[in-house]
């Protein structure tokens, strides 16, 4: 379904405060062969990103402690995480939320509910472009 031969070795950080959705996304990514790290809020996501240096991140926007935007901003200020691709997942339909995502340095965004196949293809596209 997804992932090339290298996919299994690369770490993808997923953060969402909704546990069901977190599990859903992680399950899909694991099924596709990626190694996955989980975070239940923004602060945790930032800490894991700093510690484990993932190849790519998938963040929900509206999270407690730190929003997805804030985590991206923090990562962009860190030389080691400046280039790490980030996809924002949002349930919001507000255009300005999308615009803000790109402003703070996200590489892509997807609206919820997302098509899992599309998410996987976007992840692969971003990693290829690296």
């Amino acid at each position, binding site marked *: 379904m997804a992932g090339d031969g290298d996919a299994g070795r690369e770490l993808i950080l997923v953060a969402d405060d909704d546990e*069901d959705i977190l599990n859903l996304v992680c*399950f*899909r990514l694991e099924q596709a062969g990626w190694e996955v790290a989980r975070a239940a809020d923004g602060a945790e996501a930032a800490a894991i990103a700093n510690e484990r240096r993932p190849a790519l991140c998938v963040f929900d926007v509206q999270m407690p402690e730190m929003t997805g935007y804030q985590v991206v901003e923090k990562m962009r200020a860190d030389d080691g995480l400046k280039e790490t691709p980030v996809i924002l997942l949002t349930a919001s339909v507000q255009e300005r939320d999308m615009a803000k995502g790109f402003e703070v340095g996200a590489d892509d965004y*997807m609206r*919820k509910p997302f098509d899992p196949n599309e998410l996987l*293809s976007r992840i692969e596209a971003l990693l290829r*472009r690296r």
Partner: protein
Amino acid sequence: MYYTVTVRETFDPIAAKTRRQRAQIAVIIIVLFAAILVLRLSLADPQASVGLLYGLPVSIAALYFRTRIAVASAVLAVGLVGVAALDGKTEAWTLLLAAVFIPYALMANLVADRMRRVATTSHEAEVNLAELIETVRESYVRVDVRGRIVDLNEDAEELFGWARDEALGIHFADAMLAAEPADELRRNIALVLAGEPAPWFRQWHDEIEARRRNGDPLTVEFLVAPLREGSGWRFNIFIFDISERARTWQEHARMAAIVQFSADAIFSYNLHGKVTSWNYGAERLYGYTAEEMIGNSISMIVPPDRPTDIEWILSRIRNGNRIEDFETMRTTKRGRLVDVALTASPVRDQNGDIVEAALVARDVSERKRQDRYRQGQHSATRVLAEAADPAEVIGELLAILGDSVGWPCGAIWYRDGEDTRLRCVDIWTRPGVDSPSCPFERGTALDLDGPPPPELIWDHPADEGSPIPGATVTAEAGLQTVLWVPVTIEGTTLGAVELMTRRRLERDEPMIMMTSAVSSLLTELMRRRHAESEAERLKDEFFGMVSHEMRTPLTSIIGYAELLADFEGENLSEQGRGFLGVIERNARREMRLVGDLLALVRIEAGTFSVEPESIELTEVARQAADAAAPRAEQQKVTLTASLEPLGVNSGDPHRLGQVFDNLLSNAIKFTPDGGRVDLRVARQDGAAIVEVSDSGIGIPEAEQKRLFDRLYRASSATDRHIPGLGLGLTIVRAIVEAHGGTVSVESIEGEGTTFRVELPLRPPPSKPTSEPGAQPSTVEATL
């Protein structure tokens, strides 16, 4: 005694104007000389008679040709006396002759002189000479050594109001003169009697105060000529009544004074624009004194932007036209502009030629100022009324206010969050060379001791304790008066508009009224705007939250249903997989409904927008048709798609997908079993044409217009109990219009309906969107 009579009669030829009077005088003289001749012939002295005969025609000529001959007559008389003396025959008659001629000549000469003086003075006084001569009467009084009147003529009677009979014998000086000239007369008579020179006599004295019998004052000019008569002296007094002339002068002086000290500016200039007169009012209005202006060009007071003003006035004046209330502007000595209304009239010389323009200028600055205030207020109101957000036009308002009050600069201050700090967000300086620039600049921050003043202030920043923020800086820049107009909403001062000028001005109430009117309007609109945007923000926040809260569980439902189908599908029965499909389908319906409601909220709020990306419209249409196919099949409706490739264009794939979805689902919904729905996408005149036609129930013509209204549902739909919210077409129209396109409908009830969308084909946005973003989301395109 009869000599006196003779003298008087012969003296008076000037007053004797009629031919009859002159003839009478001539007869008297001839008789006189004839008498002398007879007397002389009887003495038998031929030499003397030659002189006599010679003198006769000269005397007559003197009468007729008046005064020019008088001097010759005097010379002749002296000559005769001289000839007689040389002959040693000095006789009484020769002396008599001399006695007759010398005073005659003297007086005639004086009269001639007087006439010349009158003419000259009249000319100088610009009084009509003919009129003055008409009014001039010469009176004559003769007094003896004690000052008693021994004779007077009719003019004198008339002048003083004394009848001759009454006047004779009374004391002239006491009765007819004021104290001072009376004393002079007595003193000089005494000098004459003492044999000393009397300097007061034999010259004209101006403005001697005299009085009439009834006590009325008289102003006269007079001359006293002492005349020795036999053993005694007589004093001939010639009197001119100058009361009339004095009155004329007075009138003239009064007029001049009125003009000179009029508050209106009255001045004149010649046809070359050179100033010829300049009154006090003009000095006051323009600041230049008469000395500075007279002889100089009037263009000194004409602003440089009105170079043709004077030429225009002069061209009208040259044609003899008057100009009334010509409104223009002039520059004062101090460089200030004043609004004036000019009235100009041509001035003609004695030949009737136009030589000058006489002008009256009224200062209409005050009225103009009020006009400008009113216009300023109108402009400000209009700008505010047309502005979407009053905060955005504050800069424009500042310029309007500054222009209308004629102040040179201003600044806009916003309160910088902290209570005691103001930040300058904009400045304004009136265009013009002289305008001092605003002492602040964009970004200037002022730290205050307390919150900024919440009320309107008119103040002089140089004064100690001025409440104006930044007063020291303002005063140092030479700006003496400040008008501070704060914008205070619900007790909080958000900022202020500040106007400054170099002059120190006292409170100008009309200006304050105007600015506070504008400021209240601004405040009111800002307050309203503030409240609206607050409501807007809350609404947005609420719907954002609703969206998020509703979509998040749906995301899980759909996600897990898909997960189940993908990973556990093989373990489910056919029926179980069917049930899973129902869950997923309905969750997606719910999801779309939430999306529609949110879209509707934004359409209502006017904040609906689209996100253009690079898209292929045909591809979007194909996906929508694919998605609609199962539903069509289910309803036994034939769905066809005729899609002309249009290449890559600009558009919001998600939103345009929604247009196709809504139109197709409507068409399928309203088409009975066995009917057909056709989707067509084609290019036409640089636009994309999308048509969705069905063979459905149709829409009554009367309702077609309302079809795109929010929540409107056609009667043909409600009558048949076909479900729906009536949102779809409203959203279709909003999306199409946001792309610059149009949507229309054609329908015949019972036969079918065609929706037609025209979308301009725009080149894709230059900024490349992210690679995967080019693919439209299939989520909402799936039914």
